[in-house]
């Protein structure tokens, strides 16, 4: 009988009949692991546990990244490395100096915006600790077997937007880096689901590097910003689910038993992910700064800022100087947020404008690496459709954020 001729009900009947023949039935004594596993997927108990795990994830991320970034990297870079390189690099004020060291009077690496100052600081001082912390916890959650349980728990919610519980895996992966997350969208069954997943990830999910920089600049507002982005994720998902033709079928998720993670496996997996990230991100951060500094020196950014000023000021409520950061965001979103932080430190942006700009950077064009990945996975047509969704989302949610910030009086 060809596989495609079976309906969902018929499949279940077939499964039942096979299982009756091959499964030996008897009395099974529940173990403690079984009970805890069962409680993890029941909404009444599973949701509070998910909240606790999320809290643990966030607290670990903050403490670990804060230890390296605030404890060592910020004082080392700002108090020692920056003044030394500002003094030692020849040709102060010249084009090469601006590209490699940046502003000779900048008091912090966030504000200098040179390849050797902001570039190295953001890549190694801010982003690397954040990425290590993220992948370490993610790997532990994977290896304990919690992630599939989370997928079961959130299945109902994801069904509302035409996806299913396993969509949580690419979504969480995306909080580390959008590139492997777009690749992980292949776990979804239909073309509609894959396209929706890739578009939602590219638009609404900030990567770990970006969250790390946000945590450094606006620690008290990061939960609110993330909540807003997830709100956008679900609203846009619900709209897309109704607009895009195609199926959103059920799937079976294999839930493995809870296990203690093995140290060697955790270390190997974390390192594989982190080293992959370093190879991809560091050249992009450094190259991105060169490109943006060249555009500044050639006057392109100023021209763009002048041209786009009415939209930025009226619709988004941010000054036109943020155009430079949006250009950078196409190359590296973490560095773009870092740039905005430098602008805020220099008094060019208020806190409210900084929050709106950070949201704009998040929902604006995906970074170059994700852009290429979208192209590779979905082809030119899907890429163009994703970009159309992105443009609409950018104006709708950017304007909405402007309204919220204005109403909250931040």
């Amino acid at each position, binding site marked *: 009988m060809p596989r495609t001729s079976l309906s969902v009900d018929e499949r279940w009947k077939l499964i039942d009949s096979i299982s009756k023949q091959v499964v030996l039935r008897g009395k099974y004594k529940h173990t403690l692991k079984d009970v805890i596993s069962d409680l993890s997927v029941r909404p009444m108990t599973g949701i509070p546990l998910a909240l606790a795990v999320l809290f643990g994830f966030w607290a670990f991320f903050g403490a670990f990244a804060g230890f390296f970034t605030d404890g060592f990297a910020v004082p*080392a870079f700002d*108090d*020692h490395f920056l003044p030394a390189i500002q003094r030692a690099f020849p040709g102060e004020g010249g084009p090469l100096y601006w590209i490699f060291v940046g502003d000779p009077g900048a008091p912090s690496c966030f504000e200098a915006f040179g390849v050797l100052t902001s570039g*190295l600081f953001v890549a190694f001082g801010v982003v690397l600790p954040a990425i290590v912390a993220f992948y370490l916890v993610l790997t532990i959650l994977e290896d304990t077997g919690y992630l599939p349980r989370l997928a079961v728990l959130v299945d109902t919610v994801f069904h509302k937007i035409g996806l299913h519980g396993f969509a949580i895996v690419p979504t969480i992966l995306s909080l580390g880096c959008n590139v492997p997350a777009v690749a992980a969208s292949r776990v979804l069954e239909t073309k509609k689901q894959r396209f929706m997943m890739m578009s939602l990830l590219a638009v609404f999910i900030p990567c770990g590097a970006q969250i790390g920089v946000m945590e450094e600049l606006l620690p008290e507002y990061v939960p609110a910003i993330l909540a807003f982005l997830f709100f956008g994720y679900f609203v846009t998902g619900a709209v897309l689910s109704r607009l895009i033709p195609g199926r959103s079928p059920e799937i079976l998720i294999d839930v493995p038993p809870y296990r203690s993670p*093995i140290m*060697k496996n955790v270390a190997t997996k974390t*390192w594989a992910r982190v080293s992959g990230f370093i190879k991809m991100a560091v050249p992009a951060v450094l190259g991105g700064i060169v490109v943006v500094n060249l555009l500044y020196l050639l006057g392109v950014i100023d021209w763009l800022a002048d041209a786009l000023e009415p939209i930025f000021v009226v619709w988004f409520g941010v000054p036109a100087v943020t155009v430079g950061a949006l250009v950078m965001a196409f190359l590296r979103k973490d560095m773009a947020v870092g740039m905005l932080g430098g602008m805020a430190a220099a008094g060019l942006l208020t806190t409210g404008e900084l929050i709106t700009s950070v949201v704009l950077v998040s929902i604006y064009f995906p970074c170059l690496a994700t852009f290429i990945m979208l192209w590779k996975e979905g082809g030119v047509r899907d890429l163009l459709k994703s970009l159309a969704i992105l443009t609409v989302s950018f104006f709708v949610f950017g304007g909405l954020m402007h309204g919220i910030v204005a109403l909250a009086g931040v």
Partner: protein
Amino acid sequence: MKVGKIGIKALVLVLIMFYALAAIAWVTGVEAPEEEEFELGEVTIEDNGTELAISIDEVSEYVTEKIEDAMGSVPEDMEMFVSGAYRATLLGISEVWEGEVPSRDDIKIVSSLPEPASALCFQYITGTGPSMENLRAENGVFEIVLQDGTLVENTSVQHLYELSKNITADDWKFEISSISTGESFVVEVKGDVFPEDFFGLREKVVFGQTASEKEGQEFTWEWSDINDGFQGFEDYEIFEGLEEPAPDSATIVALIAVILAIVILALII
């Protein structure tokens, strides 16, 4: 093969250590040492054998009074000039007299900054200011010599105020010397203490009539920041030619080594 699970034993060990440390900290009531912050000292000099400790508040009060007498009001950025001149005096005296208390009549200050508040500060310290006859027994020397070598003979508040319209960061240079030994030290404020085009903005806000409200606010923020820096930063952060005391080379080498190690490991594995 024994598998290295992230086990209970390690977690128990961490717990025991944590509660042991917490118990020690609680019982002993240990407190973190206060961070050492820069403290603005007093200018200590001898006037006819009497040791005087001149505070910045004392100088400020004198300068405010004299400027108000002469002009009817005080320019908003006056405090910044007093702080800068006061800090320069503190540094100059410590460099020339190396911990000894100088006699007032041995102090000579030559300023390149044609501006009334800083001039009155130096005049108060050298005992050469207006109406100081009852405040001092002896006096040193104070002169204003512009960058081009011109001696400013008219040091009245009004005249200096007019001259201060065109000052730049380069004018913040003061020579403090001992008349008896001829030893001197030139205190020069770092250019990056002042934001870009600060003096252009100052001219527009203080002397022009065209500054917008936003520019006025920006100027207030900027001079307040500079003033805070003069009162709170270490010498090497605001004056030229001074080395940062911390051995920073070790930190930089360690930092570079860590970055290189990470890059090499990432490339190898």
